[in-house]
């Protein structure tokens, strides 16, 4: 196997810049997903059968279908509804929506395992529902679900590479472009893999660090 080391190394500068796009997309997505996920979780505590059923179907759909197909639905489908978005925007919508669903499921699991004691105390003290959510439940919940959230972040970063299929310029697509012009497809992709490896590795180790710092605040 003859690998061209020069192509491999030369690709890095452009790829690191392109990876910035992946990170940007990921950050925006997880921001929306956290907000959306929290809102959806709060919505799910409302006990109204029809609503629960609809939400259940949407969750089942998102969890049971590949994210690539969801991306295609947003990318090809929205223009038919006369919503013309740039590929990157459509991609962010798809990933953010997907993540919203997974985060609400993570939150559901986190809530189910929480100690009801502090909450009962808050109710006994006469605190209002909204206050209990914002001061007792959610803070504890976020600390609790930090590990699966960090994992979800790495999932999102990995998902951003799928956007190469809908013409978004990010690290994988850039690697393919370099490969096409140099007639050596493998080396740039290996370089992209190295960049992505470092990014994801850093995220998961960073997450573990934060987790251990917060360990004494867990309920």
């Amino acid at each position, binding site marked *: *196997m*003859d690998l061209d080391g020069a192509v491999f190394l030369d690709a890095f500068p452009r790829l690191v810049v392109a990876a910035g796009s992946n990170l940007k997309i990921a950050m925006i997505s997880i921001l929306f997903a956290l907000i959306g996920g929290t809102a959806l*979780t709060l919505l*799910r*505590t409302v*006990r109204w059968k029809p609503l*629960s059923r609809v939400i*259940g179907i949407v969750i*089942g*759909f998102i969890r*049971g*279908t*590949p*994210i*690539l*197909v*969801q991306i*295609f*639905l947003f990318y*090809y*489908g929205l223009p*038919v*509804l006369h919503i013309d978005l740039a590929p990157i925007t459509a991609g962010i919508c798809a990933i953010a929506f997907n993540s919203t669903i997974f985060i609400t499921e993570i939150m*559901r699991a986190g*809530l*189910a395992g*929480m100690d*009801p*004691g502090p*909450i*009962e105390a808050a*109710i006994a003290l006469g605190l209002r*529902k909204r206050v*209990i*959510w914002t001061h007792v*439940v959610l803070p504890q919940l976020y600390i609790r679900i930090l590990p699966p959230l960090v994992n979800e972040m*790495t999932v999102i*970063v*990995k*998902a951003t*590479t*799928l956007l*190469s*299929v809908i013409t978004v310029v990010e690290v*994988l697509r850039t690697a393919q472009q370099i*490969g096409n012009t140099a007639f050596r*497809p*493998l080396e740039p*992709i*290996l370089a*992209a*893999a190295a960049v*992505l*490896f470092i990014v*994801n*590795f850093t995220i*998961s180790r960073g997450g573990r660090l934060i987790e251990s710092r917060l360990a004494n605040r867990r309920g």
Partner: protein
Amino acid sequence: MAFDVTVITDNWALFARGAAVTLLVASTSVVIAFALAVPLALMALSRRRLLRWSAAIYLESFRNLPFIVVLYIFFYGLPMLQWQLPETAIGIIALSCFASSYLSEIVRGAILSVPAGQMEAARAVGMSYVRGMWEIVAPQTLKFLIPPCTNTGISMLKETSVLSAITVGEITYQGLIVQGRTFAPFEVFLTTALLYWLMTSAFAALMGRAERSNGTSRSAGQTRRSLADQFLKIEV
């Protein structure tokens, strides 16, 4: 905007072929991935540092990369090793290796969940490490394997859609072809999605039955009602 069913009925053959390829790829990959995962798990549990580190390198490499990148590496890399294989085969190999890294962690966890005394008793009676693993530890890992392996199986099924990028004729690829012909994205991709949804649901139901017949006691959830339930209990 009406839902044009003819888009689906006219092209049902393509969808059917896609479904067949997806099932073929997914099932083959699951088997190979599991076959790779068991030795990897044993390596990760080994007392020999070399084995542990080799396993760790393999696992970390795959777990920090997106599958599409892994797929391209195999797609461009295998021919360079003089392996000329059809895309479907490359796809299966890539998916198997990728999935084996996740499966091996599950297998390792399951082995560790079997109480250490079981192996001790086996060694005490004179069984070798291999014999003890085979007769005593492995059968007891089943109940710890089924739930997480179900999730991995579903993930693998969904991941097969990425193989469309290297033109493997599975469901998503066929969907893209139909889309190219008919420009009816909702009909096409909703059908595509529904096909996956059907498969993953069927698989989950199957594994659910296997879990029950294996005697896993679904812990009867705490029926103790508390005031805090209005916050903590979300209807599934």
